[in-house]
């Protein structure tokens, strides 16, 4: 158990990355606690009658000097839509920091980070925090089409960027598992992935077959986010575990995939 907070943040900026993804930077009046890649916040959606519960989002960037925390929000339904309408100066309430982080790589690791859809944020955060030279970090991002990709060019300082699109409009054509770097999965000592279930399962299957260390970050439906409701469970080798407290990051060996 570790200290958690319920805190009002101010929206510093809200930038449309493309038609469905928004980068929302929040600033806290207080000093931020230590936050690691893979951890998330549970954010309140205000002024909405139909939206009762908070919505969980991975932490994308953190700046301890400026006390800012950023999220990448992809529009899925009502809550995410409403959050992307936030304006600079608006107040939002967060429960944070939640969940466990990815295993931080060791200095001799070569890692492959695979992100898709709403799972891009924690992958880029991990790339930045990996502590590795960029030549030992490959970042593979998948999307349907060119316009669905977010501009990650800034992250090329932390790793080599690779892209796939289903229609071939950008990067290699196909799903992430069809990409040429994924074909070389054996050259990595650790593989990390976050994104749509089908994508993570496909990555996990290959990693398991090849016996490569692989962590996935799950996005199960959540009510509380801090372990009291038991709604977010995932069946594991150790029984049903709460994704919000025992995860969201799991080693694929723990899962029943």
């Amino acid at each position: 158990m570790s200290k958690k907070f319920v805190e009002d943040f101010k929206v510093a900026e809200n930038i449309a990355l493309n038609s469905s993804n928004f980068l929302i930077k929040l600033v806290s009046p207080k000093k931020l606690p230590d936050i690691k890649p893979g951890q998330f916040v549970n954010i309140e959606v205000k002024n909405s009658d139909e939206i009762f519960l908070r919505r969980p989002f991975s932490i994308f960037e953190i700046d301890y000097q400026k006390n800012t925390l950023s999220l990448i929000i992809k529009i899925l339904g009502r809550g995410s839509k409403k959050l992307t309408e936030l304006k600079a100066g608006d107040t939002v309430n967060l429960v944070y920091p939640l969940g466990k982080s990815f295993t931080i790589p060791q200095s001799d690791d070569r890692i492959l980070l695979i992100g898709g859809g709403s799972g891009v944020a924690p992958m880029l955060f991990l790339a930045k925090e990996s502590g590795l030279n960029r030549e030992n970090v490959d970042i593979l991002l998948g999307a349907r089409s060119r316009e669905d990709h977010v501009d990650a060019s800034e992250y090329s300082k932390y790793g080599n960027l690779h892209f796939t699109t289903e229609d071939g409009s950008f990067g290699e054509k196909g799903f992430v598992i069809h990409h040429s770097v994924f074909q070389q999965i054996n050259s990595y000592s650790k593989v990390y992935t976050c994104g749509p279930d089908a994508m993570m399962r496909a990555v996990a299957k290959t990693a398991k077959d090849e016996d490569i260390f692989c962590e996935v970050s799950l996005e199960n439906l959540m009510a509380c986010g801090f372990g009291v409701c038991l709604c977010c469970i995932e069946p594991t080798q150790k029984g049903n575990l709460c994704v919000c407290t025992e995860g969201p990051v799991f080693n694929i060996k723990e899962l029943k995939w």
Partner: protein
Amino acid sequence: MVDLNVKIHDLELKNPVMTASGTSGFAEELTDFYDVGQLGAVLLKGTTLKNRDGNPYPRMAETASGMLNAVGLQNKGIDYFIENIYPRIKEYNTPLIVNVNGSTVEEYIEVTEKVNELDKIPAIELNISCPNVKEGGMSFGISCPSAEAVTREVRRVYDKTLIVKLSPNVTDITEIAKAVEGQGADSVSLVNTFLGMAIDSEKRIPLLSTVTGGLSGPAIKPIALRMVWQVYNAVKIPVIGMGGIMNAADAIEFLLAGATAVQVGTAIFKDPFIPVKIITGIEEYLTRHKMQSVNELIGCLQM
């Protein structure tokens, strides 16, 4: 200073605000946010004799002003609780109440006997109202003879404060309340969740793996309040009220309707500090209305 103390039979509470079972874990999770010693009491997660995995995912669905859950009493069983969890939490400075569940009367008795041995557990809440299990659970709480039988048998083996938690999924909740009072219940708590359902119209599938589940949150508050009022007028034992309480005003409504104490459930998912804010809110209300004690509110609805 206003006096917030209330008494549920032998159980003395520093204030009337408890956290509801299944919404506050084993209290430990709340200590990540604040000192649980501030709370009137904590109702621990529903416990059964043996390990239960609960129902398959998905177990929850958001609904208008509330949510449905179908957790299905996932827990590791009473022995695991006694060996592994109880030693960690027993020194918390608030009464910890075990929520006792079973699929047979014998199981309720066995769990109760084990809890009776625990010094730091001053009361149990007998859950005869869980809508999310196939056997036992709510089936005990929706007919007078079975509610009487389980209360009577548990009363025989338990000498501390016995609270019986009632199901709202009945035609007349006062009948069940009177039945368990007649068998020696020291208090009744109400309500548990209402049986409900939600559908994804696009996919044409139920949103819960179990199709139906328990509705909680502000959506149920007016019905819960009505039931507390009815039960308060039907029994002599103290009533513990809950159902959709989100703030101090909601809690005070339940006290006015006759609840000696309240439980806060689903609100904790929105903000774990809500129970603490409610305590402060009740204090402020009493000061503002120049009242000395919270007992001046209980059942004092002006007609």
